[in-house]
């Protein structure tokens, strides 16, 4: 299977879908599903292939190279599968909305460009696809107009900064080695000075950290997630944001190489150690901000920021366990966050766009499948044993503890406990408690929405109980980076310092649950009662006023809110204002209009180049 063909199908499919939409909606939708499913099949066929091929087309005289290996297969599989599910989910959600042709075009475009990023074998095609992804994402985020445009602008500005930084890195590499082929670069770079490597890593990290929403470069994410169309949220949070993770893997372990990347800097100020600490901060603070959120999508958005921290910590710590944990967590997180966004989408679809947690409640009786999906989703998010999130988190914790980073481990673990708080809040406010009177007639979600949810729910349990299957693949990736192979079994990890055996846990939980169930059955059968028949100190319950939602964790809020102002965002805003006033000043000198942010970018790049020249790294 030719990678070139695959990309042509992906991009061409997107455009054909748009054109078909002018003829008929049904054909367009059918074609979109067909295209995305066929991409899944095609990528699945690429399993185990290691190959490089040059594309016919050249860019500025540079050859564009495509390559495939286990790493790209892994990410491509996730991207195409989640993309396909998102397309299926969109079918009903996007019905009867305006500009649906455009929506499908952009959705497929985003998927195609992500595939392009993953399969690109040189940095220039990587950069081109990266830009395509950024711009099409911007258009999708701004799809809903209104506040969405502001969110999209924020996103694209930060993206541009990131890609400019990346461009500087790419140009610098080209200037030094006169090639952008990753494989060649990886061989040549071994002789580079560590100062230069550090510069490279930092400059690429800016790009990838912005995409992966690493603190303090996360500020675009919450607004963008909250305002994007909900089916696209899945793609956005699940894979698109994690392209940053792919980038980190690429630059740290493929191009620079594990041995060099893990020895840059000295003492506590090693590059990967600082990166890990940034990851740890990214775990803790957004988790606590998420607890404060009352908007379902904002809550998930902040949680996604926090979960991104785990991946960074995992890959930054630089052990085989950590790396596997980080990569596996990327997959797991994609699975459950897509599921959770789909559940929110289903709720929105049935309630007319309601996503304020405080005004929902009691949907468990009305939308049971959505509830099960959400329950499994939050179980994965928390990392309850026997769900996929547990395994990846276990790997990360274990390596942190055994490598002697207890404070990092503490940050990661406390993030989990914060995670429980917002997860329970999420599920309690939407599904448990009293059903508001106006939602008495809510229907189940339609099948096209349920199908992706069911598939993802199964995936959560499947990867939780049989983590060996993906871990085998991830282990191959790890060994290709030069790490020692983990002792992967199908049930988990075998090791001297602490093994993981999910089958034992599974069997124990199963047996014990049956015992507990039997114990409940000893007694007389419970009488089913209506929701209204609940304790209210001897009175009948007040209608619509008996659900504890507002300020759920009020005592905690009072304690933590003063420390959790989003001061980083405020700082950026102030900076932007400052730049704006500067530009207003300069506008008098220059006759033409100078965009505020462009000025900012130029200054920023100038600074970077200055640093580069000053220390002649």
């Amino acid at each position, binding site marked *: 299977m030719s990678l070139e063909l695959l990309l042509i199908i992906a991009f061409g499919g997107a455009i054909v879908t748009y054109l078909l939409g002018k003829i008929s909606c049904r054909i367009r939708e059918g074609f979109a599903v067909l295209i995305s499913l066929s991409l899944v099949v095609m990528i699945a066929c690429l399993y185990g292939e290691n190959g490089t091929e040059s594309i016919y087309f050249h860019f500025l005289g540079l050859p564009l190279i495509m390559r495939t290996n286990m790493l790209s297969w892994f990410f491509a599989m996730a991207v195409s599968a989640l993309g396909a599910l998102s397309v299926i989910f969109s079918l009903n959600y996007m019905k009867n909305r305006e500009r649906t042709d455009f929506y499908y075009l952009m959705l497929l475009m985003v998927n195609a460009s992500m595939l392009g990023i993953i399969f690109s074998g040189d940095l220039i095609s990587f950069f081109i696809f990266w830009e395509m992804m950024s711009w099409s994402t911007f258009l999708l985020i701004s799809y809903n107009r209104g506040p969405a445009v502001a969110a999209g602008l924020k996103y694209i500005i930060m993206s541009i900064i990131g890609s400019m930084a990346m461009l500087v890195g790419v140009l610098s590499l080209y200037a030094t080695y006169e090639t952008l082929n990753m494989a060649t670069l990886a061989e040549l770079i071994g002789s580079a000075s560590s100062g230069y490597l550090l510069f490279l890593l930092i400059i690429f990290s800016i790009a990838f950290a912005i995409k992966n929403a690493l603190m303090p470069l996360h500020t675009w994410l919450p607004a963008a997630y909250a305002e994007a169309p909900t089916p696209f949220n899945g793609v956005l949070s699940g894979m698109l944001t994690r392209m940053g993770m792919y980038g980190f893997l690429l630059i740290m372990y493929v191009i620079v190489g594990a041995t060099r990347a893990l020895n840059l800097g000295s003492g506590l100020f090693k590059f990967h150690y600082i990166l890990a600490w940034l990851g740890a901060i990214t775990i803790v603070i957004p988790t606590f901000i998420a607890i404060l959120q009352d908007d379902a999508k904002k809550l998930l958005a902040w949680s996604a920021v926090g979960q991104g921290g785990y991946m960074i910590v995992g890959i930054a710590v630089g052990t085989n366990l950590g790396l596997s944990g980080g990569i596996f967590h990327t997959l797991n997180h994609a699975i459950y966050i897509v599921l959770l966004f789909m559940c929110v989408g289903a709720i929105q679809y049935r309630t007319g766009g309601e996503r304020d947690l405080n005004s929902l409640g009691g949907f468990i009786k009305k939308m049971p499948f959505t509830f099960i999906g959400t329950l499994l989703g939050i179980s994965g998010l928390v990392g309850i044993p026997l769900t996929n999130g547990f395994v990846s988190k276990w790997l990360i914790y274990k390596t942190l503890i055994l490598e002697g980073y207890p404070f990092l481990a503490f940050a990661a673990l406390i993030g989990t406990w914060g995670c429980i708080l917002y997860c329970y809040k999420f599920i309690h406010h939407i599904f448990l408690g009293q059903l508001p009177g106006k939602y008495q007639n809510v229907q189940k979600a339609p099948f096209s929405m349920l199908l992706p949810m069911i598939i993802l729910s199964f995936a959560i349990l499947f990867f939780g109980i049989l983590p060996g299957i993906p871990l085998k693949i991830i282990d191959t990736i790890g060994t290709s980076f030069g790490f020692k192979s983990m002792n992967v079994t199908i049930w988990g990890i075998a090791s001297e310092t602490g093994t993981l055996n999910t089958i034992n846990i599974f069997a124990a939980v199963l047996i014990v649950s049956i015992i507990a169930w039997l114990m409940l059955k000893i007694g007389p059968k419970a009488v089913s009662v209506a929701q209204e028949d609940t304790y209210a*100190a*001897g009175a009948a319950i007040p209608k619509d006023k*008996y659900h*504890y939602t507002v300020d*759920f964790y*009020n*005592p905690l809020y009072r304690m933590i809110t003063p420390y959790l102002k989003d001061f980083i965002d405020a700082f950026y805003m102030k900076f932007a204002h400052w730049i704006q006033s500067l530009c207003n000043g300069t506008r008098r000198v220059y006759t033409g209009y100078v965009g505020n942010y462009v000025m900012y970018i130029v200054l920023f790049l100038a600074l970077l180049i200055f640093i580069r020249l000053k220390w002649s790294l």
Partner: protein
Amino acid sequence: MRELELYFGPQHLGMVGNFSITLKVEGDRILKATANPGYLHRGFEKLMELRSWIKNFPMVCRINVVEPDSMEMIYAMGVEKLAGIEVPERAHYIRSIYLELARVGSHLFGLWAYANMLGFDTVAQWAMYHRDLVLDLFEELTGGRVYHIYIWPGGVRRDFPEGFKDKIVNTLHSIGGCVPDYDNTFFNNRLFYERAKGIGTVTREEALAMGGTGQVLRATGMQYDVRRVEPYAAYDKVPWEVPTREDGDAYSRIWVVRDEMIESVHMIFKLLDAMPEGEVYNRIPNPFKWTIPNKEAYVRCESSRGELGLYLVSNGGDKPYRVHFRTPSYTHGLTILEKALKNASIADVGNIMISLYVVAPEIDR
């Protein structure tokens, strides 16, 4: 934004007495509290209009079950004022001792309720045990544990039995011997301070504006006590202090209760020493034909919760024409409670309510 209405009572472990508070809640903050009385309304004042002057004595003590004695006293005082009956000197002393004993019992009950509300079972159990000792004294004196019907127009029903003085002294000594224990485990406990300090604050201005009396007022530094202002029984015969505190929060109120209890015990000792010999009862006319001239009277006394008043009207018949009790819990439980609960935490509802010493049957009557 969704509202949450939470019912605190009537069927609630944190509710002493049959009373209900409807809380409008956001998070664990109370936005608005609405007292909802009436679960114990029996129409006492209506029923008393149907019964003769003397038959009302069994009725009147049942208005307040925690401290029925001050109820007997106020009714006796009202009838005496209307009919112009004098009370012998010794009866005054016995009444005072009796009322102070009742105050100790009532405050111990309040301490039980308060400690229980903070989850402090141990102290609660001790307090209830000691209250039982006081009730034993009443039982010996009057034959009833809870309702005594001991005070009578014109005096008290019977004199102290043989050796009763010593029993009072012994009992009070055995309770007083445990005061250090109470102090160590409860009153000087840091956690009690944490729980009660700054909770349910009623400033002096608020208390005065809303007609607060009793500990509510004394906890704000006012030395207002009806026993001092308008002395009745034998309260002007012996010296005693009015304990006060300055802050007006739950902590101050509970400390005032504690100090008052100790002051009552001291007062009982002084009264026992100063008690004269003599008659305890001035005979009244045949109670079944007893009529009282067309008159009205307002009398007041200090119950364990604050100022207790009685407005009594006679139209010259053998039954009261109108009876109206001014009970301290009425103001504390309906006006001040709603004010004090505003912006409090759900965890402090019982705390505040008991520290205001709201007794539900008093409100409803």
